Each structure stands twice: as C-alpha cells, then as structure tokens.
C-alpha cells in the first residue's frame, strides 16, 4: 500500500531554498548537515517522521520514496522476527552511524550529476507499507510515481539490528546529455 500525507497545498522547494530561509548546520553521524527552519516544511516532515517511526517499529514499512522531479527511494527490509528473538542482535551504534554517514555522503555526491532543477518543484514523501495497515488520519492512499526515460543509480545500503535499508535514485535523463 502506498501512502502519502494529505495536504492542501504543496510545499515547494523554492520555499525551502528561499532567501528568507536560514539553513542551520546540524552535526549528526559525524557529518555537517543543513536543515531547514521553514516552519511549514518542519511541520510536514515532523508529521511524516512521527508516523514513520511508528511503522518502522512495527516493521510495517517496505519503502520510503522522496519524489521531486527526481525520485529517491529507500527500500527497507524489516526483519519481523527481531522482536520475537530472545537473543539480542549485535551491531554497535558506531558501526551503524558509519554506514549511515557513508550513504549520506553518497547522496551528496549524487547532486554532482543530477540534472539541475531550474524551476520550482514540489516534493512528496511516499511510504510503502504492508497491505493490511489501517490508514491513519491525515494520510491517504497514493499511486506509485514513475519517471519516463529515466536512469537509476543504486547507493550503498546500511543495516541495523533489525532493518536493512537499500537506497536508489532515479532521475530523468536531460535532453542534452
């Protein structure tokens, strides 16, 4: 099932990158990341993340898709037996953070060859969940998003004790490339 947060108006990337937005640096995973202070974007992302956390904990999430003109998707494999096992699974926080940092760096590297977005774009977050999930309030079912004449690039994956996350970027091949 594909779900997205229902919203009356799209949040444009122009708002995020607008001159009135200030991007603060945040240290996480040993990396400096820029985060938005646009209140509407923060509110939107908080809503998504809160629900996502709940679904991840229940191992109900299969994929997270960020749709702009490009599509970035994260395939999430969840080991549902993890909660049943009595033996604790071993993976250090540092190891997980190292892997996440590596993926984040790859995402930054991807920007070097993605086509330039010359117009304002809106973005959406789609979450693929188990079929039998009850659709929460403020969420709605959606269809998949595909790009015609696209190219796909796979990034590295990272694993926790329960989840394995594979990531991929699909983008429309520019006409002059």
């Amino acid at each position, binding site marked *: 099932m594909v779900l997205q947060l229902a919203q009356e108006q799209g949040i444009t990337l122009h708002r995020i990158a607008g001159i009135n937005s200030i991007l603060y*640096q945040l*240290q996480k995973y040993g*990396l400096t990341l*820029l985060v938005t202070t646009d209140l509407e974007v923060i509110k939107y992302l908080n809503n998504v993340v809160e629900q996502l956390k709940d679904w991840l904990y229940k191992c109900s999430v299969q994929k997270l898709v960020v749709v702009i003109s490009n599509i970035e998707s994260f395939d999430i494999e969840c080991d549902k037996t993890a909660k049943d096992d009595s033996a604790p699974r071993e993976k250090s926080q540092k190891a997980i953070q*190292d892997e996440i940092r590596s993926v984040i760096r790859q995402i930054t590297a991807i920007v070097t*060859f993605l086509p330039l977005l010359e117009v304002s774009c809106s973005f959406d977050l789609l979450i693929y969940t188990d079929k039998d999930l009850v659709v929460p309030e403020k969420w709605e079912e959606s269809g998949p998003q595909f790009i015609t004449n696209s190219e796909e690039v796979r990034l590295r994956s990272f694993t926790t004790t329960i989840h394995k996350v594979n990531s991929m970027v699909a983008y429309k091949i520019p006409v002059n490339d």
Partner: protein
Amino acid sequence: MAAPEPEVLSPAAVPDLEWYEKSEETDAPQIELLETTSTQEPPNPSEPFCPRDCMVPVVFPGPVSQEGCCRFTCELLKHIMYQRQQLPLPYEQLKHFYRKASPQAEEVVRKKPRAEVSSRKCQQALAELESVLSHLEGFFARTLVPRVLILLGGSALCPKEFYELDLSRLAPNSVDQSLSTAACLRRLFRAIFMADAFSELQAPPLMGTIVMAQGHRDCGEDWFRPKLNYRVPSRGHKLTVTLSCGRPSIQSTAWEDYIWFQAPVTLRGFHE
C-alpha cells in the same frame, strides 16, 4: 640577453594534429571500472608506470573546450576535499552558509565562541581554495594541461593519498564546437560515483591538500611554481580519471616540453 620566444602550445591551436571525421555514437560506451593496471602509456614516458588502485575512463561524445577542462579540475578538487572530509560541507554550501550576511547567522556566531572559531577557519579555508581555483583558471588559459594531481597528506613527493586527472587524451578544440561543460561534468561525476572511489567508512584526519598540474615549461606561469624534477608518487594512489573524446589523442612526444607546476598554497580543510 633577450629571452627566447616561448613555444607554447596555446589552448586554441595545436600544430600537426591530424583530425579525421569519424561518426560518433550518440550514446557513449558504458563506463567501466577498471581494477587492473592501465594498458595505455602515460603522457610522459620517462616517468615510471605505477600500479593503479582505481582507474575510471570517461569518454565524452565530442570535443571539449579548455575552459571545460579547467572546470573538470576545479570541480574534482572541491569534490575530493568534501568526500575525503577535509571540508564539512560541499564547497558551494559552505560559501552560501558562511558568507550569507543574515542577522540570525551572525547571532549564532556571536553567542557561541566555538562557532566563531569555526567560522574563521571556514573563511580561511574558503579563501585559500578560492585562490587556488582562481589561479587554476589563469593556468588553463596559458597552457594546455595534460595532467593534474590532487595530493592529500604527507608531502607532494610522498602523500598519504593522491588523485589524478588525465586530460592528455582530450584534444583541444575551439569553443564553438565543444560539448556542454555541464553535461560533461555530469558524465564525469557519474563515472566517479559508479566507481565508488570514496567508500571508506573510516573518517580520515585533516590533511593538507596540494595541487599539481602539468603545463608548458615556457608558459610564463608566475603563481604555480615549476618543479622540474618532480615525479608522480609511487605510493598512495587512489584514483585516476582518464578523459577522452573519441578523437585521436595528441602524440606523447608533444608533451616533452611539459613540466609539473605546484600550487604554492597547501589547502587546509577544517572540521566543524
């Protein structure tokens, strides 16, 4: 005594090159990661051939301009410094964040001494890097540049790691016939990405970054310093990106009058 007239191969024209028309495929061949040593001769046959850790050939479907070659070099330098964690953010983001005169940003800096130190370090790093980038533009305007080295850590002779950009197979071309530089950059960085050259999980320490570039010995360069006896290091090689455009490359003998020049500034990155 008057100085001899320099015989410089200007970027605009190279004598005695035979061009032949060859139909180019619209789609470039698949970019392959070669994990074995290169079978092609280096531009300067007198330099020892070194085993390669990672080689990435990139074939452009047409000619590129000298300005394009300069952009490839500058973008690769910025990319390596970020990917090897000598800069906390990509160069353009650093410039945007630290140069933006916003009241809120200044407020943050005023309240946090650590942030002020970080801001100073960033300003210095940016200034040094901008200086090198600016002088690279001047260098590329003076002379053909067949090879560029970006060396991290240690010294120019014995770095901890180094990256090479081989431009010797790109025959120079007049600007109006060249491919779009932006499209070439996308092709270049996609190839580097696919080669997964920056996959180490362990964060490297802060290191000095030295830029070296080959140019004609009589090009009149006065900022980059000539290093007549410089040899490409035999240890620490991480990546060679070889660019070509499907046309016949310049004969290796044409590079005999080309020597290494070193940037007089060692770039110092910073961590947040």
